């Protein structure tokens, strides 16, 4: 298990999730609640990142977040910090997914 990569991805996802949660007020509440939920799913998938099922969840959450992030960048200029954090978290998750997939392939060969 790529433990340090897992903890790194988890830290970035949590940072992004907390930032999004702290900004979930007023008019932007609805939009940011969707981002919050996606980050929640990502955090949960990493927490339980030992099964193939959790790999699938991570991939789906990363793809969804990429789309949401593109929207954030287009529409809400003042949420640039959120977009940056989400981008960093998504990249860390992608790296973790690659490592886990390679480890799974290696285990299958051995």
């Amino acid at each position, binding site marked *: 298990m790529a433990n340090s990569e897992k903890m790194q991805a*988890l830290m970035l996802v949590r940072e992004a999730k907390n930032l999004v*949660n702290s900004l979930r007020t007023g008019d932007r*509440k*609805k939009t940011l609640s969707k981002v919050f939920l996606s980050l929640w799913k990502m955090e*949960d998938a990493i927490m*339980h990142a030992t099964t193939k099922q959790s790999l699938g969840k991570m991939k789906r959450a990363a793809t969804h977040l990429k789309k949401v992030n593109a929207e954030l960048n287009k529409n809400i200029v003042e949420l640039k910090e959120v977009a940056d954090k989400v981008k960093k978290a998504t990249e860390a998750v992608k790296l973790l997914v690659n490592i886990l997939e390679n480890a799974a392939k290696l285990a299958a060969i051995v």
Partner: protein
Amino acid sequence: MTRLNMLDLRAMAQRSFGGLLAVLMLLMLVGCPSVMTTNQVEQVNKFAKTAEAYGPLPGDVLRTYADQKWALDLVDMSTLEPDDAAELFKLSSESRQEMYQEAAQVDQSLAVLNTYASLLKTLTASDYTEATGKEAQRFGEAIDTGVVKYNELSGSSVSSFGSIAASAVQAIGGMYIRHKQGKALKAAVTNAEKSVNQLLKESMELMEPYGADDKHFVALRSSLQTSLIPLTDSWNSAGEPVPLDVVEWFREQYLSSYQGSKLAKLSYDAAKKYQAAHEKLVEAVEVKENLVEIIGSVEAFASDVEAALALKKQMEK
């Protein structure tokens, strides 16, 4: 020589031979490495008792986190749109369930180690008899059943070690019970070494992010802080301040997460000391000179377990 004198001489010779045999056997037993000193046996017994008390602690760490995370998710649900709240409710319930399953895996690992501790206690009993020997055999069988269950839950492949200990017990009994008890104890401890290490290692891996570097409980506290913002916003939007009992609830959750951190650290450290004490135990049953080290290791393990149990008691109040 009369017939009477002849009989006297034969009886004398038989007595001398019997006495000589007894002395020879005694010398063999004393010189045999299987005989354990009272102090060695006491230390094994103390280790076993501490190990039994440690049993439920690691699983409790995971359950404590799962419960506190669930409470936090409930707060977030209350500030989400209905469809998002319903989705989070489902996901969070599943996640909690998954964490409880991980806790059950750790519980099962510790259940095996507990049975092993009971076996050691039986093998170090001062009133060891044929009946306690049979009891030890039952513990041996229970260890193997427990290992099978653990492997099913975790997908791991820990080797069974109970029946090996049980067969060593079977071979003893009858005369020279103390000597043979020591022999069985050595066989049990030596054969258990690899599996005990693996069981502890796998439990520690699950506990590591909670206990070793305290990542999860720290994150829980940060999340609690930020969750208060949308919650306050909801109350304020309705023209009301956040009720004080809600703020008090947050304070309690915050403090509980600190206790969770502490319990996790103590349980993780105790697991490390468990491993160290068992390693010393393996050495100590082989070499009597290592007794000082085993005493130190068992004491350190016992003191961590004691502190963790006291904290758990406090948390349950």
